[in-house]
C-alpha cells in the first residue's frame, strides 16, 4: 500500500488500540481471560491479513506494511497474537495457501515430515494456549514444508511467559494437516522473519517506555518541584532516549532491508544485527525507566511493566543477542578482517 494509505491505517489502528486494548485487557490476558471481542475487531479491520495478497482474501500489503503494524502493536502491548498470526498467514499465502481465520501462532523449531507424518516438539511457542492454528515449517526430506495444524490436533503444555502471555510447548504427533505445501521460506528464514517481527515490537515497546517515563517525570513532584527539573533525572532520561533511538533505528533499518530484499532472503544480516541490538539494549531501557520511576513503576498497578516485561521476554524470543551475535561473529571471523568494512557498509554477512 502507498505511504498515505499505510499512515491512515496506522492512525486508525493506533486509536483503536488506545480505546480497546487498554490496561484492563492486558491484565485480563495475564489472568487467563481471552479478549474475544478485541480479536474479532482486529480481524474485522483486516490486520492479520495485512500482507496476504488480495486474491487470497488479504489486504495486499507489503512486508513493510505488516512490520509497521507490528511496531504499533508493540507500543500498545496488544495482548493477542496479532503479529504471530499476520506472519503465519503470510507464510501460508507464500506457499499458495489460503490463511485460516482465528488466531494462529508460529511453532518454529525441530519439526519433521516423514512418511506422511508430522512430528516434533517446540518450546516457548507464543500464545500456544489460545491459538486456534499452529503454523510450522517442517523438514520434508530436506525441503521446507509449511504446515497448518488445528490446535485441537496438537498437544499443548501451557507455560506462561514472564510477561504473562500464554506461551507453551507444542507437540505434534502425526496430526492431520489443515494445509501442507512446500514452502518458499525455509525454517531458518521463518525464524529470521519472526526475529524481525519481535525487533519491531520491541521498537514500539521501547518508544512507549520512554514516553511513559518522560510523562511521569513531569507529573511526579518531589522536593516541591516536578522531578523532570532535576538534572539527574534529565540525564537519565536522555540516556534512555539514546537506547530507545538505537532500538527504533536498527529495527526500522532491518525492516526496510527485508521489505526491499523480499520475503525469501531480504535483509538477512540486517535482521540479525537488529535483533542482537534490540535484545542487547532491552535491559538498559527497562533498567533506566524503572529507576527513574521509583516504586510506582515497580507496582502491578502501573502500566510500565506491560512494556518492560515484554522487552525482557521478546529479547529472548526467536534468538537473543547471544544467538544472533554468534551468527554474525562466526561469519565475520571466517571471512577475516579485510571483509569487515565492505560487508558492514553493504549490510551483508561477510563472506
Amino acid at each position: 500500500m502507498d505511504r498515505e494509505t499505510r499512515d491512515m491505517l496506522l492512525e486508525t489502528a493506533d486509536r483503536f488500540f488506545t480505546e480497546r486494548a487498554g490496561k484492563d485487557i492486558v491484565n485480563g490476558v495475564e489472568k487467563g481471560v481471552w479478549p474475544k471481542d478485541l480479536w474479532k475487531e482486529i480481524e474485522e479491520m483486516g490486520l492479520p491479513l495485512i500482507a496476504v495478497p488480495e486474491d487470497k482474501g488479504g489486504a495486499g500489503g507489503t512486508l513493510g506494511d505488516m512490520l509497521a503494524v507490528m511496531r504499533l502493536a508493540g507500543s500498545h502491548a496488544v495482548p493477542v497474537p496479532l503479529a504471530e498470526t499476520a506472519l503465519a498467514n503470510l507464510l501460508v499465502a507464500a506457499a499458495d495457501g489460503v490463511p485460516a481465520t482465528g488466531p494462529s501462532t508460529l511453532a518454529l523449531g525441530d519439526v519433521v515430515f516423514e512418511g506422511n507424518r508430522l512430528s516434533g516438539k517446540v518450546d516457548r511457542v507464543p500464545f500456544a494456549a489460545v491459538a486456534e492454528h499452529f503454523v510450522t515449517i517442517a523438514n520434508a526430506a530436506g525441503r521446507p514444508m509449511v504446515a497448518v495444524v488445528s490446535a485441537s490436533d496438537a498437544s499443548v503444555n501451557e507455560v506462561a511467559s514472564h510477561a504473562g502471555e500464554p506461551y507453551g510447548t507444542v507437540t505434534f504427533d502425526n496430526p492431520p494437516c489443515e494445509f501442507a505445501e512446500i514452502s518458499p521460506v525455509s525454517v531458518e528464514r521463518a525464524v529470521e522473519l519472526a526475529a524481525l517481527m519481535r525487533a519491531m515490537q520491541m521498537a514500539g515497546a521501547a518508544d512507549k517506555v520512554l514516553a511513559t517515563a518522560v510523562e511521569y517525570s513531569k507529573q511526579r513532584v518531589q522536593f516541591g518541584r516536578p522531578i523532570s527539573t532535576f538534572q539527574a533525572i534529565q540525564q537519565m532520561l536522555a540516556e534512555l532516549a539514546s537506547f530507545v533511538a538505537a532500538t527504533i533505528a536498527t529495527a526500522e533499518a532491518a525492516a526496510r532491508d527485508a521489505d526491499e530484499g523480499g520475503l525469501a532472503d531480504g535483509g538477512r544480516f540486517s535482521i540479525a544485527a537488529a535483533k542482537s541490538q534490540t535484545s542487547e539494549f532491552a535491559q538498559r531501557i527497562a533498567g533506566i525507566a524503572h529507576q527513574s520511576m521509583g516504586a510506582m513503576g515497580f507496582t502491578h498497578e502501573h502500566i510500565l511493566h506491560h512494556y518492560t516485561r515484554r522487552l525482557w521476554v521478546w529479547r529472548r524470543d526467536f534468538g537473543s543477542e547471544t544467538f544472533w551475535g554468534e551468527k554474525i561473529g562466526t561469519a565475520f571471523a571466517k571471512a577475516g578482517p579485510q571483509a569487515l568494512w565492505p560487508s558492514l557498509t553493504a549490510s551483508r554477512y561477510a563472506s
Partner: protein
Amino acid sequence: MSIPKLEFPPFHLPPEAEALRGEVREFLNETLPKVKSEDRFASWNTFSPQFSRELGKKGWIGITWPRKYGGSEKSFLERYVVTEELLGNSAPAGAHWVADRQSGPLLLRFGSEEQREAILPKITRGECYFSIGMSEPDSGSDLASVRTRAEPVPGGFRVNGTKVWTSGAHRNHYCIALVRTSGQHGDRHKGLSQLLVDLKTPNITIRPIINLAGRHDWNEVTFSDAFIPESCLIGNEGDGWLQVTSELAFERSGPERFMQNYYVLRELVRVLGRQPAKRAASILGRLIARLWTLRQMSVAVAGMMQGGKSPVIEASLVKDLGTIYQQDLPEIARVLAESDATTEEDMADFLDTAQYATMMAPSYTIQGGTTQVLRGIVARGLGLR
C-alpha cells in the same frame, strides 16, 4: 502524551555516492600501503600532509564546495562516503580534517569573498590546515564565557588571551578564534566575534600540552598584543556566537563519532582467527551489530540533513551512543582477546593496541560537546527543560 517522536528514517546513500565509494576504495588501496602502519591507528588524528595533498588531487577535500573555490560541487552524501571510507580504512586524514569539516564550511557561509578566494582553494588542494580556537582555560562546555579580547585598533584588532586544547596549532596554518570584541566578560552571547588567525602572526606563542597518552596534539595558544588585520574578521562583528553554534553542528553526527577506533574491531577479528569459539563469536557479533546500528543512525541523520531538516537531537544521540560504544569497544575486546586470541603473540600485540585505545577513549565523550552537555540538549528536546 506529546513527546517528540524519535525517528531515524532508514536512508539509502544514492547511487552516485556508492559509485564514488568504489573510486575512494581504489585510491586508498593504492595509497595506504605507502603509509607507515603506526600512522594508521589514529586516522583523523594523524597528520600527513603528503596524504592530504594526494586526496586533494582527487578533488575529495571540500568536495561539496563551489568549483570557483576549488570544490567539486558534489552532495553532502558524497562527502559522507569519502569520510567514512577514510575512517573505515584507517587513512591518516588528520591534516585537513578540521578545515574540510568545519573551517572551510564556516568561511563559505560567513567569510568575505577575499577570505574565501585566498583560503578555500588551498584547503581543497590539501595544503592548508586549521585549528579550532574555541576553548580557553576558563571556558570549556561554557563557551560563552570566553575571555580572549580583541580590542579594535586602527586597521584591525589587538588580541590578548589564551586558547587551550588547540589541536594541531603547532603545525597548522590557521586557527579560527572566538574572541570578545565588545562588552564585558559577563555579557555571554553578545559581543563575541570570530577571527581568522594566521598562526605565524607575531606575538602569538604556541606551547605543547601533552595528553595522557604522551601525544602532542593539543597546544596552548597565547595572544600577547597580537595584531590581527580587520580583513581577518569572519562575518559581522558581534555575530560570533551564532556562527560558532553553526560550526559546532558540523562536528556532531559524522562517522568519526563511532569510527575513531575502528581499527580495534578490525584487529580483534584478526586475533580471534577464522574459527572462534561460540562465546567469542557471539561477543564479536554483538559489537558488529552495534556498529552497524550506529552507521544506520548516522546515515539516517545525513539523509534528514540532505532533506533540509536540522535533526539536532538525533545528531546528539548519535554522538552519545557512538562515543560510549567507542569506550566499550577496547574494554570488551581486551577481555575477549585475553581468553580467545589464537596465539600468545597475537594476544600480546593486540593488548598493546587495545591499551592505547583505552588511553585515548576518555577524550571521545569530551571533545565536540561532552556527553553531559549533549544529554542536556536531548533533555530539552524531550521537553524536560
